[in-house]
């Protein structure tokens, strides 16, 4: 394993097809400690499928994903180990409907013996405070707005102290007035040095928070670079067209 010491995730020649449709074509990517990577691109280009691979929610057809230098599908390495270290936030929040806010956050750390109950509770309260939802401990998800639910979902993912956080279009299912509160939380996380990959349609947000932007189109990374390179000086024709439609 010749990974650089500060490389967290290495994706090597990843390919995936659903039936006859090839969604990902030979994708490679290195993610370094502290990276905040924004993934943009038209719908159906494979952004979400890509990010789901990093959380082992999809199984690639070809290629390798290395996490801290180890193949995540290597024998003896339990999928659970990878998932504990890589958190994920979904478009639809996906909170556990039968559990209170507090229990949503505490469930994984306690069940997987990462923390004792009281430690997990203290951690959950601290996280709730961080996402601005102190006092909502005993609410059920159905009693919260979309923005509040997504903030809880972020707190839930953070409770496992992950090395990397993945966001799959975290604001796409929200009403416009709630987008801001969620983006603010993600921004705070970025500022705290968290390694993150964010699939998003919020270009201004990508510009301001990411240190690297990937433009996905037709299953490949068409162009990548710093926000300045991508947004101010795009080279690829498809990217130019995409940005002109978005702006």
């Amino acid at each position: 394993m010749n990974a650089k010491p500060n490389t967290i995730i290495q994706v090597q020649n990843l390919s995936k097809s659903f039936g006859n449709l090839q969604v990902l074509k030979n994708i490679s990517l290195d993610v370094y400690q502290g990276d905040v990577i924004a993934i943009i691109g038209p719908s159906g280009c494979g952004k979400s499928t890509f990010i789901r691979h990093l959380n082992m929610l999809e199984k690639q057809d070809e290629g390798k994903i290395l996490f801290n230098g180890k193949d995540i599908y290597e024998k003896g390495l339990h999928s659970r180990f990878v998932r504990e270290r890589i958190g994920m936030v979904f478009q639809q929040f996906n909170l556990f409907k039968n559990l209170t806010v507090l229990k949503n956050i505490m469930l994984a750390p306690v069940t997987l013996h990462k923390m004792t109950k009281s430690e997990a509770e203290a951690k959950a309260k601290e996280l709730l405070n961080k996402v601005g939802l102190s006092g909502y401990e005993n609410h059920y998800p159905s009693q919260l707005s979309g923005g509040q639910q997504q903030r809880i979902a972020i707190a839930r993912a953070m409770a496992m102290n992950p090395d990397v956080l993945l966001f799959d279009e975290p604001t796409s299912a929200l009403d416009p007035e709630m987008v801001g509160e969620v983006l603010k939380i993600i921004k705070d996380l970025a500022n705290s040095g968290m390694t993150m990959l964010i699939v998003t349609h919020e270009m201004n947000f990508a510009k301001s928070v990411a240190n690297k932007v990937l433009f996905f189109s037709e299953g490949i990374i068409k162009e990548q670079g710093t926000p300045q390179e991508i947004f101010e000086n795009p080279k690829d024709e498809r990217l130019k067209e995409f940005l002109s439609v978005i702006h």
Partner: protein
Amino acid sequence: MFKKIPIWAILFFSFAFILGCNDNAIPANKVFAVKDLAHKKVGVQIGNTADIYASDFGGDTAKIQVERYSKLTDAIQALSQGKIDAVLCDDQPAKAFLRQNQSLKILDEVFVEETYAGVIAKNNTALLDTVNMALKNLKISGTYDSIFNTYINRSSDFHYTQKVKSENKLILSTNAQFPPYEFHSANGIEGIDIEIARYIADYMNRSLEIQDIEFDAIINSVNSGKADIGLAGFTITEERKKSILFTTPYAESKIVVIVRDNNKISKTESIGELLHKNFIKEARWKFIVEGLGNTLIISFFAAFLGICIGIGVSFVRFAHETMGGMKFLNTICKIYLAIIRGTPVLVQLLIIYYIVFSSVNVNKILVAVIAFGINSGAYVSEILRSGFKAIDPGQIEAGRSLGLRFRHILSHIAFPQAFKTSLPSMTNEFITLIKETSICGYIGITDLTRGGDIIRSLTYEAMLPLLAVAVIYFILVAGLSSCVARLEKRLKKNER
């Protein structure tokens, strides 16, 4: 609206009661000789030789319309209510029935004459020889005549009581709806066949155990080893000889024709008299209480077993559907579901009793619990599965993304939600289960329905026992429904 349900129920049962009291418009008797039976509706007991004779009667031109009843009492009741025109049955039971029901009479002309013998498993010639020796001794000793004088001629009150008490049992299979050969009384099951069986048991130095089941199930029971001997007024026929051994005949009987007597109108009894006759006399209410107890025990434990099986099966199927990789177990579950849902529960009950447990002496209540539990499990698992399907897959993905194992997701997230969604359908399943246990009588368990049937066979009165049984089932189901409604309310609080 909900609070008014009991009122509507009371109205309904009262309406049924009034209908039951109304015995107008019973058609006059039109059968005066055997030849008049042509084209008439004639009741017989299923499996009784009268059934065979009646079916053969008259060739193609003068066929009898045979109506088959599982109990002779039901046939007699149908006759007195004018639903059928005549009943064919053995003369001794006929006389016993007529002592109770004054509005019927027996035609002087005999339909056919026949002889009774006991039945023994096809391969058990050793037992046959012993029983035949016992029957021979019974006649020589004069005990036989004494028993007959008691029951048939009513000229003595001799009763043969068993003397031997032993761990070793002789199991008698019979259908105690056939007086005076076998019938329920306040002292349990009595009759000529029973006393003969006691004598045989003494002769063999065993103690007698009686198994009261449907008449058409007795031969099966004996052949499968559930019982040693069957005595239930069996007539020797060529057809039966193929599947069973007959002892030497021990009684002669005639099949006679019972018809309504136009000259005698049944006297109407007051409600007080009816209540006394059906429930109070000879403490007959005890049959209902005993039956209710068994119905409750069977329903409760079968529901428990059904929930356990249902949860297990639905877990396997849910796991397979979300994660894959349980192909073998999933296939087994699918086969189980297909078989259980594809066959009637009565058939399953009989298969479990007569085939699965054929060689084991097992408690019948346990058999019923197992049969109904296995049956209910199939439905519960499908109900739960639909509950699992209603959970959005996102929650399960979120669980997996946190590193939770499948069993954690199942127990903390998926099952609690699936259970809550399935609760209304599950209640429905258990309501069905309670009512389905009413077929327990087929393997000789006195459940609530059977308890009412026993009273009917003693009083020749349909309305009150049936209504009482219906009201009790109704109360059971209403109780269950209101308990679940309360539980649902509590679970709802959890969410909003």
